[in-house]
């Protein structure tokens, strides 16, 4: 009898526990890291006209304090062991990249990264912004955690923002992701034209027409408003892949069909750059456009979009067409973004 009562009581307790556990998900507090003592301020990331929705991981929803912490880190050489910060190579006034060629490949700009799931020219990093940012601090910068943990400033900030007593690469990556997700460029001349605020010149419109019709056919990869599909294509830049780096996505997948494929670069603020393509081989937009017009190499895995009839013999653009196309590319320069003090080095 006694045993039975115990069994029934146990069953009852179990039932209660299951009820509580199974109903726990109901609580909508998306943030599991907040400590009871601090309340973080939720931040709404505003999207420019026509931008697709931003998918943000549940465990790193935007908070003002975390974004500010990410910003501190982005500009702070403490993350590296050689005096560099992220901003040494990702310079705001140049579109969060370096326009000149300082390394063996152009620095990729930090623009609208929140929409990406493929990172680096050859796609060597995939996943969320949180994933790639953890790579940046852990592997690229080899951030010294002892140094971070002995900084009273960062100890306090990480405690406040993530509720941790011990800073790891994870929280650093999460904070960097918070900040870089706010690096949104969506106020270029073109964006203002889209929202109806201003008009483009007839010449710019002519370029836009070439870009967005089969005449230039740029939009299939440099897509509507985003100016990148964030996918890999062989655009016929090479026919033999002399350097390892020319093999592109192949270096990641080892699939021969991926030879020479690169991630479509974002064309926002492209006019500020001085070196183009994965190895910076072209040094002006004229050269890039001339490549599309006449220089595409016929390779067996050339992207189908590049092989339409008109393109086998080049796009057949006139000098004026080419100039118009470049004039249109220049409307993608976003001075609001380049000068936004909220994205600059903290005081």
């Amino acid at each position, binding site marked *: 009898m006694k045993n039975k009562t115990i069994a*029934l009581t146990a*069953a*009852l307790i*179990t*039932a*209660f526990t*299951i*009820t*509580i556990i*199974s*109903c726990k998900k*109901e609580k909508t507090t998306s943030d599991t890291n907040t400590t009871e003592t601090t309340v973080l301020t939720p931040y709404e990331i505003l999207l420019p006209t*026509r*931008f*697709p*929705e931003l998918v943000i991981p549940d465990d790193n929803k935007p908070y003002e304090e975390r974004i500010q912490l990410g910003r501190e880190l982005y500009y702070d050489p403490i993350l590296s062991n050689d005096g560099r910060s992220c901003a040494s190579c990702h310079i705001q006034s140049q579109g969060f990249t370096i326009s000149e060629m300082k390394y063996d490949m152009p620095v990729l700009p930090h623009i609208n990264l929140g*929409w990406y799931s493929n990172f680096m020219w050859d796609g060597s990093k995939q996943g969320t912004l949180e994933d790639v940012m953890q790579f940046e601090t852990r592997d690229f910068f080899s951030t010294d955690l002892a140094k971070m943990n002995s900084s009273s400033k960062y100890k306090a900030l990480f405690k406040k923002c993530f509720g941790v007593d011990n800073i790891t690469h994870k929280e650093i990556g999460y904070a960097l992701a918070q900040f870089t997700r706010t690096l949104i460029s969506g106020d270029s001349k073109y964006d203002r034209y889209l929202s109806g605020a201003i008009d483009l010149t007839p010449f710019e419109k002519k370029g*836009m*027409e070439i870009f*967005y*019709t*089969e005449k230039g*056919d740029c*939009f299939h990869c440099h*897509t*509507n*408003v*985003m100016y990148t*599909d*964030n996918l890999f294509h062989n655009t016929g830049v090479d026919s033999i892949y002399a350097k390892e780096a020319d093999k592109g996505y192949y270096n990641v997948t080892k699939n021969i*069909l991926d030879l020479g494929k690169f991630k479509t670069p974002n064309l926002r603020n492209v006019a500020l750059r001085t070196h183009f393509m994965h190895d910076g081989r072209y040094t002006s937009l004229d050269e890039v456009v001339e490549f599309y017009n006449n220089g595409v190499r*016929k390779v*067996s*895995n*050339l*992207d*189908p*979009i*590049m*092989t*339409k*009839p008109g393109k086998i013999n080049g796009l057949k653009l006139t000098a004026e067409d080419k100039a118009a196309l470049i004039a249109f590319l220049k409307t993608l320069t976003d001075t609001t973004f380049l000068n936004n003090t909220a994205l600059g080095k903290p005081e």
Partner: protein
Amino acid sequence: MRVYFFALCILIWGCKKRETGVQPPYNTGNLSINITYSVDAQPLSWNDLVYKNEAGNEYSISKLQYYLSDFRFYKNNILLQGVDSVFYIDANISNTNNLLFRNINSEKYDSVSFCIGVMPAKNSIGGLPATVDNNNMVWPDMMGGGYHFLKLEGHWKDTTGLNGFAMHLGKNGFQCFTGLKCKIDILPQSLSVWQIKMNINEWFRTPNVYNFSTDGVYTMGNDLLMQKIKENGVNVFSIL
């Protein structure tokens, strides 16, 4: 025993609040339409140069993305239910190939019609939810505006080597309406599954034999070619 019952009640009661919104009507069920692919008798294998179309072109497939919309369910030629949803499908992403319809009236349907593409009401940029997938399917305003209904791309062997082809459909007027006989029995509060198959070679077969070498490899911006592909689209689906 009574205590067990009591415990169970707590369990149920405790979770009741979780159900939000209205209860689905008891005379409806859910339907899942699952799509598979073939090229005549061959299974779909990406980037494999192993297919031959009606015109004799040897080809491979690297991309197949499209929309299905305007599903209508019939019995004895009477339209019993229409569904407003638009489904984005990437043949290479398996979960997009299971289309889920909730709360379909419980009936024995004998035919289904639908549209390959986006119905005119939603076929303008911004007409579909702003997802990255939909954004990548945008059909520029300068070319008519809206979304690509179909992107079927790959490579084919011509006399000089491998070449690309891109069969793109879009622009109002080029939606492809089609239908299938079926035996779909929607039971109340249960999930029915209906399997259909797209035979990719049908895009190049009836009524218009499509030849990459004489017709061209690129349909976008060419109404004549899009019309051919649109007409062939009527026959691409069959029941499994």
